[in-house]
């Protein structure tokens, strides 16, 4: 098995745990779990570009990294003021 594909598969539990944590508990902990899941999803997408030898997939990871930050800021604003 390709080591990058093995890395993708090994990362999946580390992706599933924050997804589960984002579904329960206090809203602050859920927000931290979403940020964690976003970070792990970015690494998974990066490893998938090597695992499947598709260089174009890296743009998905770059897009996720670029969009995650403003999304987090907006959610933090909602958390601070209204939620």
């Amino acid at each position, binding site marked *: 098995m390709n080591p990058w594909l093995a890395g993708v598969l090994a990362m999946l*539990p580390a992706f599933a745990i924050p997804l589960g944590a984002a579904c329960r508990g206090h809203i*602050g902990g859920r927000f*931290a779990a979403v940020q964690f899941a976003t*970070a792990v999803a970015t690494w998974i997408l990066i490893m998938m570009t090597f695992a499947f030898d598709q260089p174009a997939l890296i743009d998905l990871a770059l897009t996720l990294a670029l969009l995650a930050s403003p999304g*987090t*800021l907006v959610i933090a604003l909602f958390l*601070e003021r209204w*939620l």
Partner: protein
Amino acid sequence: MRSAAVDVLLALAVLCAWLGAAGLIRLPSAMDRLHCVAFVVAASGAAITLAAFIADGVSDRALKILAITVIGLLAGAANAHVTGRALLQRSER
């Protein structure tokens, strides 16, 4: 030799992600959990970026991965600060 280095770096990245996930479960407060996010972004990101440069050389893909890691580090610091501030403001309400 290069393949072994990539294997070790990927294993390190996965180990850091697992460690961060364990911390996310075990740590009690949201403030503590934000440290896990920063740890995974920094540690796994560095390992994966290095592995990509070893596997690919200096290519467009490797440079984009470097950009993703730098964006993650810079934006992660800002996001952690904003999140912590939001949580503090919320707790004072």
